[in-house]
């Protein structure tokens, strides 16, 4: 029996190649924009990208979490205090920060993911506020209103401390790329299909044999774990964290990134981060009206682009990829002829 040809005709390398080009370009960015101002901005975009990606996972199961900044805080404070107070090396503290956030999410998730829709949203809103008040008052753990100062930049084995903004950029980009890869793989896996099913209808999902509660809890744990890692990145980047970095408005921001970028794709989360993060810089000239402009922009976006930018870009992107595939040479086959065709 002849081997069945894949539908792509041996051109399955095109999409990964396209991604490789994009990622390669991202790595090349610091060489093109070397000023500290741009690098600072890029670094913040990367951190926000990790955060938005984490929220995307939670959104994929149909739950809207307004506590994302709260879990970021858990990760940030854990990582920062481990380094500053206990001298734990960076990578360990960073990982532990993510673990702390993930663990809290798993424990809480079992209880709170019973809530559906708007009730979950309101609960996470209150949770964020409560964590905020906690971080202001439990001074012994968090440093209270003053927060934690003097957090050193990330220090990696073999490479040493990442003092320059460019070095941090490469590290953060690596984290983001790895996270995106994992998330994309997760979405394509059977678990990803379970997430989609649960989002569409928990009743039907149960009927076909999924356990919606387990799916939601795992998704919540992973998403908040990413938030914790983002928090660790944030802490070691800014060098100083205080309760005011993790309010409800920050949670709203991450949600906004997903909505603007398009929550149905993991790329949407990152696109959203790329757009939302520099917005205050662009609006710098209009200090007085900045707030008003921002509000109107938001309403316009919701009205005319409710599925986010990724949905706008998805169709042209697919068309482009199809064209590339058609033009790309397939291995071992006459060009212009589909495999298996008789000459």
């Amino acid at each position, binding site marked *: 029996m002849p081997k069945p040809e894949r539908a792509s005709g041996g051109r399955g390398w095109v999409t990964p190649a396209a991604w490789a080009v994009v990622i390669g370009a991202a790595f090349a960015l610091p060489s093109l924009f070397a000023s500290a101002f741009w690098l600072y901005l890029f670094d913040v975009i990367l951190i926000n990208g990790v955060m938005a990606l984490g929220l995307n996972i939670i959104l994929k199961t149909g739950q809207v979490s307004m506590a994302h900044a709260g879990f970021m805080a858990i990760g940030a404070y854990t990582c920062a205090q481990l380094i500053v107070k206990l001298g734990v090396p960076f990578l360990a503290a960073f990982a532990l920060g993510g673990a702390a956030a993930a663990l809290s999410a798993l424990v809480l998730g079992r209880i709170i993911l019973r809530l559906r829709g708007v*009730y979950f949203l309101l609960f996470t809103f209150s949770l964020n506020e409560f964590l905020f*008040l906690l971080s202001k008052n439990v001074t012994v753990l968090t440093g209270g209103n003053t927060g934690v100062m003097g957090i050193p930049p990330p220090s990696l084995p073999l490479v040493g401390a990442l003092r320059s903004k460019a070095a941090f950029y490469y590290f953060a980009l690596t984290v983001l790329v790895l996270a995106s890869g994992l998330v994309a793989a997760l979405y394509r896996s059977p678990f990803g299909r379970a997430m989609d099913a649960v989002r569409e209808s928990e009743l039907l999902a149960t009927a076909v044999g999924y356990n919606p509660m387990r799916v939601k809890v795992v998704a919540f744990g992973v998403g908040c774990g990413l938030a914790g890692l983002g928090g660790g990145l944030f802490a070691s980047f800014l060098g100083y964290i205080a309760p005011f970095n993790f309010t409800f408005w920050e949670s709203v921001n991450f949600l906004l990134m997903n909505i603007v970028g398009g929550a149905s794709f993991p790329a949407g989360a990152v696109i959203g981060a790329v757009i939302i993060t520099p917005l205050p810089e662009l609006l710098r000239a209009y200090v007085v009206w900045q*707030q008003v402009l921002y509000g109107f922009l938001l309403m316009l976006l919701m009205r005319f682009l409710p599925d986010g930018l990724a949905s706008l870009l998805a169709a042209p992107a697919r068309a482009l990829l199809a064209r590339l595939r058609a033009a790309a040479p397939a291995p071992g086959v006459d060009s212009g002829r589909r495999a298996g065709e008789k000459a």
Partner: protein
Amino acid sequence: MLTLASLAQIVVNGLAAGVFYVLMALGFTLIFGILRLVNFAHGEFYMLGAFVVYHLYAQLGMNFFVALAAAAVAVAAVGVLVERVVFAPLRSRELSMLMSALGLQIAIQGIMAVVEGVEGLSLPSPVQGVYRSGWITFPYDRLLVVGAGLVVLLLFYAFITWTRLGQALRAVAQDGDAALMQGIPVNFVYTAAFAIGCALAAIGGALIGPVFSLQVYMGQPALLKAFIVVILGGLGSVPGALVGGLVLGLGESAFATLFGGLTSDMFGFLMIMGILLWKPTGLLGRAEA
């Protein structure tokens, strides 16, 4: 030390604060019950009402209650415009409506900050003086708010129970599709509900403004309180708002006076998290269909 007099004072403070909170929450719960919209801009309509009354009453010398009515009508008009333009096109998309409400909140606050400035202003109360007895002390401006608030609550209850529009509102809140099939003009009801919710917020702001202070950012704390009250009492439930408001007011009063100011805020959030886990639909809420 907890004397009977101080206990009485705590209760009186708490009940008064409770009525304040009910006034803040009423419009919010109405809008959620009927439009399924978490109206983040609720605090801004509250603030608008206070500013309209400030201009009409404190600056132009109009009668306080006439100014109050005018504020309610004006803000309701704004509500109609907003509902038609911003929310109606997004009818079934709850998340988009929510983010739009957020954008609206930011925009209104930003505009008012430019127009009115950010400094605190004083909205004088139509009544002055304090009631003092051996047991309790109670400023008359608070008494006015409590009295007017109860009147508003009664009027609203009458409206919702006995008028045709009120019954239509309840029908749509219960089941929008069934109401449509009954021939109720659902779109009109949505707009009316939003406008009434905004008017209630405006009345709340105008009544409470003299007791606290007037500032373009005054809507934020009010929104937060409304959230807590409505979650406690049940989203969409008017009697729930009453119960939730009183419970919150009493609880905060007790905690603040007995244990200090910091605990009362945390108390509020702990309570709602507890309620959401125990009975998510709130103390008096209906289970979702």
